[in-house]
């Protein structure tokens, strides 16, 4: 039972240490460093951000960011510093201008156009069979057994 002494120790430490031990918190600048470094791509490790990468270069780049934040530089200035040196590649998130708008607008244009097209098509498919539509209506509002068949159908055949 190696656990018990440890538990005891930890309980003791738990009670006493928080008062004894120096409580640390991350540097107040770190949040800004994190925000910047998560938005910049590690140049050697492929599709990870600087902040998430363990590579030497990425970590040194993060420490450059740290120094610049400590100097009081703005996030925009720091982003631009890296952008000027590594180009568009460095931004995890492509800038919202020029050809990149295809990326940013494409999905929503696709949804909108697709939605409209689908709506028109659905209306056409529905209208394309005027008599049957009436039949369906009467089917739906028809006699009780008929109705229960419909209900049953709806349940069984997913």
């Amino acid at each position, binding site marked *: 039972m190696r656990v018990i002494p440890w538990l005891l120790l930890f309980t003791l430490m738990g009670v006493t240490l928080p008062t004894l031990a120096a409580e640390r918190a991350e540097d107040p600048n770190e949040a800004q460093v994190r925000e910047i470094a998560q938005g910049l791509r590690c140049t050697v490790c492929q599709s990870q951000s600087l902040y998430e990468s363990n590579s030497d270069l990425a970590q040194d780049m993060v420490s450059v960011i740290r120094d610049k934040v400590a100097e009081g530089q703005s996030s925009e200035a720091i982003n631009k510093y890296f952008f000027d040196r590594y180009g568009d590649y460095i*931004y995890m998130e492509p800038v919202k201008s020029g050809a990149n708008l295809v990326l940013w607008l494409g999905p929503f244009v696709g949804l909108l156009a697709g939605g409209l097209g689908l709506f028109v098509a659905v209306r056409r498919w529905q209208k394309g069979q005027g008599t049957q539509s009436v039949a369906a209506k009467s089917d739906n509002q028809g006699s009780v057994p008929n109705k229960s068949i419909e209900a049953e159908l709806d349940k069984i055949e997913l």
Partner: protein
Amino acid sequence: MWIELGHFSAILALVLAVIQTGTAFVGGTLDRPVWVRVSRQAALVGSGFLTLAMLGLQISFLTHDFSVQYVAGHASLDLPFFYLATALWGGHEGSLLLWGWLLSVFGTIAVFSYWRSQSASIPWVLVVFGCLVISFLCLVLFLSSPFDRLIPPPMDGRDLNPLLQDPGMVFHPPFLYMGYVGFAVPYAFAISALIRGRLDDQWIRATRRWSLFAWAMLTVGIVFGANWAYYELGWGGYWAWDPVENASFMPWLTATAFLHSVMVQERSGQFRIWNLMLIITTFALSLLGTFLVRSGVLSSVHAFANDPGRGVYILGFMSVLLLVSFGLLTLRGDALKSENRLDGVVSREVAFLFNNLFFMVAMLTVLLGTLYPLAVETFSNAKVTVGAPYYNKVFLPIMFGILLLMGIGAVIPWRRASAQRMIKLFRLPLIIGFLALPLSWYWGVDHPYGIGALFLILFVITSHGGEIIRSVRARVRKDRLSPLTAFVRLISRNRRRYGGFVVHAGLLVMVAGFIGSGLFQEEQNLVMKPGETVRIGAWTLTLDKIHTVARENWEATEAVMHAQGRGEILTLRPQKRVYNEHSMPTTEASIHTTIREDLYVILGDAVGDGWHIRVFRNPLVVWVWIGALIMGLGVLIAFFEKRIVVARKTVREAS
């Protein structure tokens, strides 16, 4: 010796695949059943030989035969047995062999199980599988052979990549491949339907289980990958929108669309072409996934397994497959065209159509984001990155749309729904949904996405729950059953439908996990000395000491920390490991999981007399894994439905 046996078997399997394709082709075009029978036998014997090939390689691993180059590159004497036994797919060559083997085995199973019921399709299914197996075996045998010898053999192997020595990575590839290859079955039947130009919906009914199976495997495989990333990569997250992750996600999206839209075709024979396109796209995207991982055309964390030479071959293979499949689709399209008729604009059919629209747009978004950098690089001199922040921003609205449709589509009646019916169905879910506002105020959720997700989760749960309660009540009233019996009977008689409900529930649980961990992650990144503490959330962590630990094939610097909070005291041991055969250290995060949140600690480098430590509080991460389990359960329920019967007949039987 074993490896030669394996090699020889693989060559025989290739020869048999050629025979399989040839005889099936003759049998199919000239209508000669005997030839088809020969082809079937060739398929059976071929998969037997491929199994032997796998065995040969596997035995070489288990016996530490380092005279086999592939074994020497991916195993070592110190490699623990579990990883030794699974190192076969730890590299490029072995994974391709695994792909080929699964393809051959799945093909044979499909052919034997549909031999009688789908006899008209069988010759072409054999041809399609034969061609696929030939393509994969050529790749395995001529371009990336795992059977090559290494003379003189080294004393010890170079060991498996340390990143792959993780249970998540052991299970990730086989499940993913079973998913990819599983779609080959409906794909082959679809191609067969196109070649024959037959209008029937047979292939869809016949291959429903395969589609479900493949979808489930793909889901599980993707989640294993995410799990691996979370435990092994040590950056606090599980999904990075890496091109290779995207490659597995795209077929998942189209396959999900397919599983929904086939229901419309099964019911009323509509949208045939659309479904053919979906399944072809799904399988093509599965191959694209392999292409992306194996060719090195895109940069990614998975870049350790690439090779441009093979890339050219896989590109050729994929081009042929894409051109033939979509070419067939466009050539035969008109012949197969069904007349689309809809009874009502407000109906489940239409909800499914919009569901398909959203899934397609989702897939195209991921495809666009994955290919855009490639296009920019190819057509200009610049290089751009499309990273996680982009996908998170663009994908979330689409996902919300899908969730909303899920809440509507699963309960709205087929054919048409009257206004009263709609009010009856959705009044309560909407009211409950809007409880999200007070709830998020109570929980302190102030992010609009958080509130939106909460609304949708409540809405979908209530719409699904309401449907179950209504049906149970109807049965209780009609058959005078106890509610429990009625419930069990309801589920077991409509396993597919309620299995689907369970899958939806699992997805909701996952969404809660995504939102919790995505929006509310907290982090402390600092240098600590032994004895110092740091606070995160409700926890106080103390660094007790730093020491060294060792195992068979690695040595690690380990931090011993204890965390106090929520009435618990627990020990955390994050490590920085160096594997004997590799110089790059790997981080082993120490993770304490609770239902509420994960405490996730990473040990970094020594800085002065302190140590770099990153502590994350990841709320609700475990819900992602639980949600995946629930989804798996749902598929299992749906999978074991007795059989799909023609609707009218069932009604008559029931009444």
